[in-house]
C-alpha cells in the first residue's frame, strides 16, 4: 500500500504519472539529516516561501544513524546561505558555538623548515580583478610574504583581531569572513529553524526501500515501519550510506585515492584551559609526516584533527602525532576516528534524485570544501528548481556537468598544496610531489604559472570554486618559483601602486578599529548584532 502515511493530505501515487512532463515538482523529500540534509531542507523551503510556490519539503532521517559532523569550517558563502534561509547571524553564532574565520594558515607545507608558514586569507588580493599585483610582489622590496603584501587580513589574524566590529550589521564585515562552527549544534539549529519557521515536515524513521515509478524515478521511500513518503524530487543527504544515489541507482563512485592519499582522520575536541583564552580567527593547518593537523577555534573549545594516509602511517602513530600536537590537554580526551573515502559519484543527479553532501563525495577538509559544496549544490537546486518533471532532466544534465567540473577543480586545487612542496622528509610528501600522482592538467598549469600568474583566463568556468586569487595565495605562499614580466614593463604600474598604498591604509585602520576576536564573540553573545 502506498498511502499508509499521510503528509498533509498530499500523498499521491506517483508510479504511473512520473513520466508526465507537465507534472509539477511540488513534493520534495530530503533523505538524511545532518548539515547537508538540513541545509537542503531550509534552502528549498525558504526558496518556496520567497517565491510563493506550493512546494512542500519533507525531511526523513533515521534516529539510529549519527551524523558524521564533518565540516566545522565554512566558506564566506555560508553568510549568504544563512541570510537566504532567514536565520539571524546572532542566533547562528550563539547556537553553534561559532567563531569567525578569516582564512587558513598553512604551517610547514613549503619545506618544513622552522618558520615555514603562509596564509590563504579570504580577502582577495587588493585591486582584484582590476589589477594583478603578483608581478609587483615578485620584485617587492624587503621580501614580504605574498598574503601580507597584497592584503591586510593576515595581519589581523596574527593580531588575533576579528573581521568585524560589533557595530557592523549582521553578515557584514570590514574583512571577508566565514565561520568555524560545531557541526552537531549547527544541524540542530537548522532543524529547529526548518521545522518551526520554514514549515519543513520532519519524519523520523529508517528507510527500508524505495518504490520506483515506471520511468525509473523514485516514487516514494518506504520506512521500516511501513510508512511511505512520496515525492517528486528526492535529495539524497544520507551521508556515506548514499541510500538513493548509491543504494537505489548504483551510480558509480569515482575514487581519487591515487591523487589524494589521505583516507583517515582522528579528531578531538579540546576545551580551552581558560575560558578567556584567545580564539584563533583562522584555521591552522600544520603539515605532519603523513598528513596534516587542522586546528580551529570555537567559542568554548578547539576542534583539532589529524588527517593522514593509512598507507603511510599507522592509526596508532597518527593518534600519537595528534596527542603530541595537543599536548597535556589531550591526556583525558578520547579520539574519534573518521574514514575518508576520497572521491565522488560519477553522476550526482540521476532521474529525480540528486545527491548532496557526503553521498555525493568527500575529500580531505584541507580547504573546507564540504559545507561549501552543499551550499553550491543547493544554490543550483533551490534557485533553479525545475517546475515540472519535464525540466528535471535538463537540470540534471547541467548539475552533473557543473559539479563534475567542480570536483575536478577541487581535487586539483587540493593536490596543488602537496604537488609543489619541497618537503622530502617522508614517503607521503615525496609521493605527493611525484607528477605521476597529479591530476591531468596540473603539470601543464604549473608550467604556465612559472611564467604568468594564475589568471581568470586559465579557468574554464566563470564561477570557479577556487578562482585565480586562491591559486596565487597557495603558489606564492609556498614560494613556487616564477619569472613574471617586470612590473615596470606593464601598463598598470601606477594603478598597482595605488592599490598597494590603499591596502596599507586599510590595514592601519583595521588594526585600530577591530576588536579582539573573543571580545567580539562575547559582545555578540551578550548584545547581539543588529540587522542594519
Amino acid at each position, binding site marked *: 500500500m502506498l498511502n499508509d502515511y499521510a503528509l498533509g493530505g498530499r500523498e499521491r501515487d506517483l508510479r504511473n504519472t512520473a513520466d508526465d512532463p507537465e507534472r509539477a515538482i511540488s513534493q520534495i523529500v530530503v533523505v538524511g539529516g545532518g548539515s547537508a540534509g538540513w541545509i537542503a531542507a531550509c534552502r528549498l523551503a525558504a526558496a518556496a516561501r520567497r517565491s510563493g510556490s506550493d512546494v512542500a519539503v519533507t525531511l526523513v532521517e533515521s534516529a539510529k544513524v549519527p551524523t558524521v559532523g564533518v565540516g566545522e569550517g565554512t566558506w564566506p558563502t555560508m553568510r549568504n546561505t544563512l541570510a537566504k534561509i532567514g536565520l539571524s547571524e546572532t542566533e547562528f553564532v550563539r547556537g553553534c558555538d561559532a567563531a569567525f574565520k578569516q582564512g587558513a594558515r598553512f604551517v610547514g607545507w613549503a619545506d618544513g623548515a622552522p618558520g615555514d608558514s603562509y596564509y590563504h586569507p579570504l580577502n582577495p588580493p587588493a585591486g582584484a580583478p582590476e589589477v594583478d599585483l603578483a608581478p609587483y610582489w615578485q620584485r617587492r622590496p624587503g621580501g614580504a610574504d605574498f598574503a601580507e603584501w597584497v592584503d591586510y587580513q593576515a595581519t589581523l589574524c596574527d593580531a588575533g583581531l576579528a573581521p568585524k*566590529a560589533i*557595530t557592523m550589521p549582521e553578515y557584514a564585515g570590514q574583512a571577508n569572513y566565514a565561520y568555524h562552527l560545531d557541526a552537531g549544534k549547527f544541524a540542530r539549529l537548522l532543524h529547529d529553524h526548518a521545522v518551526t519557521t520554514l514549515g519543513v515536515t520532519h519524519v523520523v524513521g529508517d528507510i527500508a526501500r524505495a518504490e520506483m515509478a515506471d520511468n525509473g524515478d523514485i516514487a516514494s521511500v518506504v520506512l521500516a515501519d511501513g510508512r511511505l513518503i512520496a515525492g517528486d524530487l528526492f535529495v539524497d543527504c544520507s551521508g556515506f550510506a548514499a541510500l538513493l544515489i548509491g543504494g537505489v541507482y548504483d551510480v558509480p563512485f569515482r575514487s581519487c585515492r591515487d591523487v589524494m592519499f589521505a583516507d583517515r582522520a582522528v579528531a578531538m575536541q579540546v576545551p580551552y584551559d581558560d575560558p578567556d583564552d584567545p580564539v584563533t580567527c583562522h584555521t591552522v593547518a600544520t603539515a605532519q609526516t603523513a598528513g596534516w593537523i587542522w586546528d580551529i577555534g570555537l567559542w568554548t573549545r578547539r576542534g583539532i584533527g589529524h588527517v593522514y594516509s593509512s598507507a603511510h602511517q599507522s592509526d596508532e602513530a597518527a593518534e600519537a602525532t595528534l596527542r603530541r600536537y595537543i599536548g597535556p590537554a589531550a591526556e583525558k580526551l578520547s579520539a574519534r576516528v573518521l574514514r575518508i573515502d576520497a572521491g565522488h559519484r560519477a553522476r550526482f543527479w540521476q532521474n529525480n534524485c540528486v545527491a548532496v553532501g557526503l553521498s555525493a563525495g568527500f575529500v580531505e577538509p584541507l580547504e573546507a570544501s564540504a559545507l561549501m559544496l552543499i551550499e553550491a549544490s543547493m544554490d543550483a537546486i533551490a534557485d533553479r528548481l525545475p517546475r515540472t518533471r519535464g525540466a528535471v532532466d535538463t537540470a540534471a544534465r547541467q548539475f552533473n556537468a557543473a559539479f563534475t567540473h567542480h570536483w575536478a577543480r577541487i581535487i586539483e586545487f587540493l593536490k596543488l598544496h602537496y604537488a609543489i612542496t619541497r618537503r622530502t622528509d617522508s614517503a607521503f610528501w615525496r609521493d605527493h610531489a611525484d607528477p605521476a600522482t597529479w591530476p591531468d592538467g596540473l603539470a601543464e598549469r604549473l608550467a604556465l604559472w612559472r611564467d604568468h600568474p594564475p589568471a581568470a583566463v586559465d579557468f574554464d568556468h566563470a564561477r570557479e570554486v577556487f578562482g585565480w586569487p586562491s591559486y596565487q595565495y597557495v603558489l606564492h605562499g609556498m614560494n613556487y618559483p616564477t619569472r613574471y614580466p617586470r612590473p615596470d614593463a606593464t601598463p598598470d604600474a601606477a594603478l598597482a601602486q595605488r592599490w598597494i598604498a590603499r591596502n596599507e591604509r586599510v590595514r592601519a585602520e583595521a588594526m585600530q578599529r577591530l576588536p579582539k576576536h573573543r571580545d567580539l564573540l562575547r559582545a555578540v553573545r551578550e548584545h*547581539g*548584532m*543588529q*540587522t*542594519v
Partner: protein
Amino acid sequence: MTRLRALDPARHGALRLDRARGAAGRRLVPVGRGEIAPLVADMPLLFAKDAQTGRFEPVALLGLVEPVNLFVSPAGYHATSQPGAAGLTALRLDAGGVDGLAVDEADPSLGTTGEPLFVDGRAGHWRAALDAALSDVTAGRALADGYARRGLLRRLSVVLSMDDGQEQVLDGLYGVAEEALAALPDADVVAMHRADELAPAAVLTASLAQVERLRQLHNARFPQQIAAIRLAIGD
C-alpha cells in the same frame, strides 16, 4: 583625552561645573527618551550604535565637519534645550568617590564658572542628576531596541557638499525607516501607540530637518562653508 579621578573634596572642592559648556568637543551625545520632544526644536535626533555593545541609542547630532558642538560657543549655550547627558560629561559613576562619583578633570565644563561641585561637602545633587540622565538614556536605548526588533531602523548618512566642490559624508547614523513603519501590521501599530513608541518615531523623523540649522551654525563659525546638506538613505 580624559583624566578621570574619584571625586575628592580636597582636590575638587573649589571646582564648578558649567553644564552649558558640556560636550563642547562632541558631535554626538546620547539622548534620553524623555528629552526627545523638547530637543526636536533645536537639533536633529538620530540613532547611533554604542561602540561596546553595538546596540542602538538615540543621539543628538551637534556638529558636522569638526568635532565640536555647534551649540556651544565661548559666549555660552545657544539652544532652547540641552541633552541631559551633554551637561554632565564631566561626571562618571565611581564607587570610590564622594557620593559614588568621579570627574573627568580634562572636561571643559569643569572650572570656575557654573554650579559648585560640592555643597556642604557633598555632591549628592550631581549624583541624582547623573542617575536621572542615565535612567532616561537607558529608556531611550529600550525604545531603540524596540524599533530595531521591528526592523524600523535604517542607515542614514549626512552628506555635506562643501563650497569647494568636495563632498563629506557622516556615516554610522540611523533613522526611522518610514516605509517600514507605514507597512507595520495594524496590531503592531496599536501596540506601539499604547507603549508610546509611535509618537517618538514621528518626532525623531521630523527632527531631521534640523540638519539645515547645523549647516547654518557651522557656516557662521568656520571659514570652510557647507554649500548644501542632505540626508542619504542607506540599505
